[in-house]
């Protein structure tokens, strides 16, 4: 599933219509989600750019879709906000019809439907993660193009390229919640260090049967690696 997201972004910006002068806000970003026993940990950086200017340095890219289902957004800010709003509405309606909590797979399917149907017009890479009573914590990734697949750990956005090695070597099945939080925070920090389009603060969230716990790690509190 090594779709080079960077390539898509580059050809996009080389298209003469989409120059830096146009107000294209992008969530060129780093997003991540990890499953653990009893829930999921999701994380994202907080930078939104228009060209070389940071339009919002404290963006919240972890968007609630339902009580215990979140999505991590990367790609075009406008497209992902619009898709997330639409899916939130559809899932809410579906949940009321069912009279029970929706499945994470349902939410992921709704995202996939929209992202695949309008793949030519949209630029959206989304990770859907949450907890439902039937299958526990799940992470589904819906990259640009509209594929959907379930993965125990998933990274996305322009900064993800820099941390595939770190994630592949450091992920172990059966990590605890605290270990997952540390793993996610460190991976995001490494990506933010190297990727110009990622930065700001690290936003984390833990979704489990008990609900959602959110935290923010500010710039000066990020884990430190090399002192170059």
């Amino acid at each position, binding site marked *: 599933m090594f779709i080079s997201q960077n390539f898509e972004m580059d050809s996009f910006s080389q298209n003469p*219509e989409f120059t830096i002068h146009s*107000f294209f*806000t992008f969530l060129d970003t780093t997003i991540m989600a990890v499953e653990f026993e009893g829930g999921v940990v999701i994380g994202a950086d907080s930078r939104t750019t228009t060209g070389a200017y940071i339009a*919002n340095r404290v963006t919240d890219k972890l968007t609630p879709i339902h009580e215990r289902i979140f999505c991590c957004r990367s790609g*075009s*800010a*406008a497209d992902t*906000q619009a898709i997330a709003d639409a899916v939130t509405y559809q899932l809410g309606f579906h949940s009321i019809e069912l009279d029970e909590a929706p499945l994470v797979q349902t939410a992921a399917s709704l995202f996939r439907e929209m992202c695949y149907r309008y793949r030519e017009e949209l630029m959206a890479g989304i990770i859907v993660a949450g907890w439902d009573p039937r299958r526990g914590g799940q992470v589904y990734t819906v990259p640009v193009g509209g594929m959907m697949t379930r993965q125990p750990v998933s990274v996305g956005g322009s900064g993800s390229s820099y941390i595939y090695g770190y994630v592949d070597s450091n992920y172990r099945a059966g990590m605890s919640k605290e270990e997952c939080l540390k793993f996610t925070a460190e991976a995001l920090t490494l990506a933010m260090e190297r990727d110009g389009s990622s930065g700001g603060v690290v936003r984390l969230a833990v979704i489990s049967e008990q609900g959602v716990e959110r935290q923010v790690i500010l710039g000066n509190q990020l884990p430190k690696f090399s002192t170059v």
Partner: protein
Amino acid sequence: MASVSVCQYRPGGFSFENCKRNALLEADINKLGFSSPAARKTGTTICGVVYKDGVVLGADTRATEGMVVADKNCSKIHYISPNIYCCGAGTAADTEMTTQIISSNLELHSLSTGRLPRVTTANRMLKQMLFRYQGYIGAALVLGGVDCNGPHLYSIYPHGSTDKLPYVTMGSGSLAAMAVFEDRYRPNMEEEEAKRLVRDAIAAGIFNDLGSGSNIDLCVITKGNVDYLRPHDMANKKGVREDKVYGRPVTGSYRYKHGTTGVLTKAVTPLNLEVVEESVQTMDTS
């Protein structure tokens, strides 16, 4: 003569066919050396800040058409509802019309719900409309207001993405204004401090960005009250020519005094004219 016509099913949504055609026409015109008429833009500095009791919105007042100032004192802070105002940057017509459309819809919505409209409602209406037009409506907005949930401030981009923040700037002068905000913003400021901060941010845009200029308008929105201060600060008053020079009025008078040019000779020749024909044309005064 009956003709069979096939009903072609048109997929829903806005058709952007003409946009491609327009781009081609633009390229053709440029090849011939002409340029298409420039849309009037509000190359602009607009900003907003949330303070203790509400929000303060600020804007400059210059509207440009290419490199020429089309309007030296235009109003960029638009009314949305009694408790919500919106600053607009980008194409002047787009911001004007978009805010008017949403203002109208919001009033109908407010009558339907029987409640004062919320800022988040206006935000959602604006973002959904702008997303529908995929960025072709060039309106970058700063939306602010106070509702039952307190003061709110949103920035809305032409493609339909929005950010909810305590301080925002938009327009060509946004970088200059943001520099001022990043330096001096504090949460829960007093009204005077907030007004001074916004005034200084807009002034930074006016004096450092070519697309912004003239005066500073402010709009202070609190619970139950709106102060629309236009102009709040006439930062660029037009200079007045000096009234008197050496005791003589100078403004607009280029007459030299009698005797400046010496007269050498004078000859008077009467012209004897004969009246050939005389006709009277009455004026129609009905």
